[in-house]
């Protein structure tokens, strides 16, 4: 026996074992009862074709006309076909720019001159009682704003010198200045913002949106994730996972360097026809499996194979930013060939232009504790601001001039805020100026998608410690995003483990005041 034959035999054995694992007691009993009849029937019906596998529409173009009541696993679930929202939508697409690590609102948008007066003084006991911080211990010193602020545009929004480009488009933005959360560590806080729960296992916002709306471009995934290279978000890939939703709705992570998706090229010696034939064969086997076991994940798998096949052409084409004209590259400040945020921002525009529903960008390095120069509020933080300032501004303006900002919602923010106190890790002075994680107040801004322009909602107290009006939570933000996409967050549910689940759990209120 040659080694190849041995290998094949091993594969066969593996497949047999996989099948055996799926074979439950219920199947056995069913087979006992009906097996002999089925044997005979099978030979009668062989010529009739497989009528039962019509549910395997996958992404093959059939528009699921009525998505029906959400929550019932029927009606096009598991398919990426476009579906209509509950009520007429103001936004059709979302670009979420998540600054993982949590940027300091006190150096960017939440100007607190009174904090300057307190700079260097001990933090009053009243602010520390009953509080728990990630790293601050004992009595920390207050830290005044480490930036110069100016009021910008007609709206008079305060934006610091760290984002000089963004400052010029202040009148396009809507600030939520009194965001709060209840998670003071990165991973749970990121999960809360993106999935509506600080624990693992819930579908991410992008998954919910693609589950609700499908994708308008059948050659591209509905939900694309781009990371800036370097570190991954602390919460890992779960923040773009599909949780209990069928896995076709999970975020497709595209690399911004090299092949956008690993192994997207056909292997050597295999042309596209053979690839198609092999995928068809695999899908046929899978369809038979689905008829046998009824596991919806098999349908997901079939849809994903088909999607992958289409993506082989469409993704490299869409992800190739080199065919953008030079002035666009200059506008975004891209660095072709590198994995960087600016390239991803340009990609995000290309993706939404092609009909991708939800583009999720993760940047990293915003965790300005002051433990090293890169994480210092007056060194590394400023560099981070400069890295994103130009490209984010370009994105808003580029979407605007193409008429896309009309129905594309852009969100920029972190998972929590930073303290008005200087961090003293374990009670000792940090080598650089830095701020600890702060759950009670942070700033998120939104633009486009039917949100008010040049508007600020919510205020914090004079040192930016607590909200005093217009307090909002990640649930409110999620409810508002869904509302703009045409969904009532309280009715948009999925039946799982015997009860309907929603993105906002039992919380959240649409922030009506910011809707244009």
């Amino acid at each position: 026996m040659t080694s190849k034959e041995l290998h094949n035999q091993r594969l066969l054995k593996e497949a047999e074992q996989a099948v055996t694992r799926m074979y439950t007691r219920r199947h056995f009993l069913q087979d006992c009862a009906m097996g002999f009849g089925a044997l005979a029937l099978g030979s009668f019906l062989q010529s009739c074709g497989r009528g039962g596998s019509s549910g395997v529409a996958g992404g093959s173009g059939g528009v699921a006309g009525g998505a029906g009541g959400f929550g019932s696993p029927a009606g096009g679930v598991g398919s990426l076909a476009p579906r209509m929202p509950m009520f007429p939508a103001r936004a059709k697409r979302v670009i979420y720019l998540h600054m993982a690590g949590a940027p300091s609102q006190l150096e960017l948008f939440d100007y607190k001159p009174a904090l300057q007066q307190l700079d260097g003084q001990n933090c009053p006991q009243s602010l520390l009682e009953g509080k728990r911080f990630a790293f601050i211990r004992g009595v920390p010193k207050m830290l005044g704003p480490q930036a110069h602020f100016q009021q910008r545009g007609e709206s008079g929004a305060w934006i610091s010198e760290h984002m000089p480009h963004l400052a010029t488009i202040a009148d396009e933005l809507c600030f939520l200045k009194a965001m709060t959360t209840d998670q003071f560590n990165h991973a749970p806080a990121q999960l809360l913002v993106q999935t509506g729960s600080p624990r693992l296992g819930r579908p991410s916002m992008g998954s919910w949106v693609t589950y609700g709306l499908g994708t308008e471009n059948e050659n591209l995934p509905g939900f694309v994730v781009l990371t800036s290279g370097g570190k991954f978000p602390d919460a890992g890939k779960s923040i773009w996972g599909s949780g209990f939703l069928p896995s076709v709705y999970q975020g497709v992570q595209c690399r911004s360097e090299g092949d956008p998706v690993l192994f997207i090229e056909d292997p050597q010696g295999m042309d596209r026809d053979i690839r198609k034939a092999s995928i068809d064969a695999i899908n046929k086997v899978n369809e038979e499996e689905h008829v046998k076991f009824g596991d919806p994940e098999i349908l997901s798998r079939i849809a994903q194979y088909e999607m992958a096949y289409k993506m082989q052409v469409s993704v490299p084409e869409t992800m190739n930013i080199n065919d953008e004209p030079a002035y666009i590259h200059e506008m975004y400040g891209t660095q072709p060939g590198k994995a960087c945020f600016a390239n991803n921002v340009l990609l995000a525009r290309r993706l939404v232009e092609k009909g991708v529903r939800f583009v999720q960008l993760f940047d990293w390095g915003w965790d300005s504790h002051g433990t090293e120069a890169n994480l210092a509020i007056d060194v590394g933080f400023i560099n981070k601001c400069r890295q994103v300032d130009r490209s984010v501004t370009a994105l808003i303006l580029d979407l605007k001039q193409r008429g896309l900002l009309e129905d594309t919602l852009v969100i920029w923010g972190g998972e929590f805020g930073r303290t008005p106190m200087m961090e003293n890790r374990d009670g000792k002075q940090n080598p650089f100026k830095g701020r600890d994680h702060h759950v009670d107040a942070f700033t998120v801004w939104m633009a486009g998608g039917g949100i008010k322009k040049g508007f600020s909602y919510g205020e914090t107290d004079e040192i930016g410690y607590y909200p005093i009006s217009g307090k909002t939570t990640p649930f409110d933000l999620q409810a508002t995003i869904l509302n703009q996409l045409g969904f009532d967050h309280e009715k948009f549910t999925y039946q799982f483990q015997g009860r309907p689940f929603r993105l906002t759990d039992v919380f959240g209120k649409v922030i009506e005041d910011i809707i244009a």
Partner: protein
Amino acid sequence: MYLLTITDLIAHLHPALVHLPIGILLIALILQLLATKEKFHSLGAAIPIVLLAGVLSAVLSCITGFMLYRSSDYDKALVSWHMWMALALTFMAFALCARSFSGRAFDRTGKWLGAGVLLLLTITGHLGGSLTHGEDYLSGALDGSSEGVSIVPLVANVQEAAVYDSIVKPMLAVGCYSCHGSRKQKGGLRLDNPAAIAKGGKDGIVLVAGKADSSELIKRMLLPESDDHHMPPKGHRQLSRGQMALLSWWIDQGADYTKRVKELPQPEKVRPALLGLQKGSGLGLGSGSPSDMPAVIPEEAVEPGDKKAIAGLRAAGVVAMPVAQNSNYLMVNFSGVRGAALVPLLLSLRKQLVQLDLSGAGVGDSAMEVVKKCVALRYVNLSNTGVTDRGVVMLGDLQELRVLNLVGTRVTGEGLLSMLPPKHLHALYLYHTRVEGRYWEKLKGLFKGAVLDSGGYVLPKLVTDTAVVRVKVG
């Protein structure tokens, strides 16, 4: 907070306790009915004991009910009807019970008594329900009036509206009257006339003129919905933020009962809410329900679009579907499918089509012959198509148009100037077109009220784009 006395506690058990006689007596009646059949005859033996339990629980309910009646402030007329009906019910049930113990539950009188018990049970139960949930509880569910519609009737000119009569009163009526109105005065509070509002409830005044923040009325509404003291109570219809802003504004301005809106100063905060009360402003005060959405689709209903045309478009890979569930208005997105031949299909959807995206679909001016007939269109995207001035002029027929995207077409300034400007146009995108700068002022004059975007934004080169901050050494 005051402590409940023991009698209060017992009295408060009444709403829970009343369900016992309702259930037990109903079971007795069902048994009575069944036992007349031969098959279930044996059930008859259980009737006396079930009836006895029902009568005992009814007596208990009557006692607790009477205690509640003395300690609470329900609508007097309603409550006394409830009481007398309950007493009658108890006596009739007792009579039936006594009959059944002597084995005469199935004679003619027994049956009449049974029917009477059922009737009284229904009436008493309904009256009780009306007391706790308000009299419009049932009828409200029928006509759907309890949700979805705007609380405050829209007015033609909000500045001329009387603040109290047209704005404040309707909000109080929906949010408060069911418990603090003429029929019921929970906590001794009545809010349906100026004198009663000024008087306050048994814990003191609820409104401090000029100080919304110190007014109990506002404070209670601002508490989290889960708080026991929150008003209106959890599960009842809540006021929106806009409505609360208006209420606070009215109190801050002195809680005057006669003035008109224009006579009061209007801070920036309440302007959107005020404007939302005006007819046709498109803004609403409700909770984001479809009817409150800005005019994305026309208000009037439309019949469903031609199924064949929709199927034809879909078969070619075009996304064609209703803009929302329960709506017949359609959005059609060619999503890059090159389908000039498909455009005529739109003709049979012309009444329903409100959003059309032909970007990159390889269509030209001839397609506009069809598009111009789709007069319901509100959003049209023609970017990167072969449309020229000839086509754009035809689009003047689309008077409902809100957004027109001509990015990347060969449209010129002359062409646009000869177009009849749509009345409600709010955005016109002209990036990468052949519109020259000298036409700009004229175009702005023609398309009044619309934002014209020429695009071509350039970001200046700043030192900060490339400079990197480093730690100062030393």
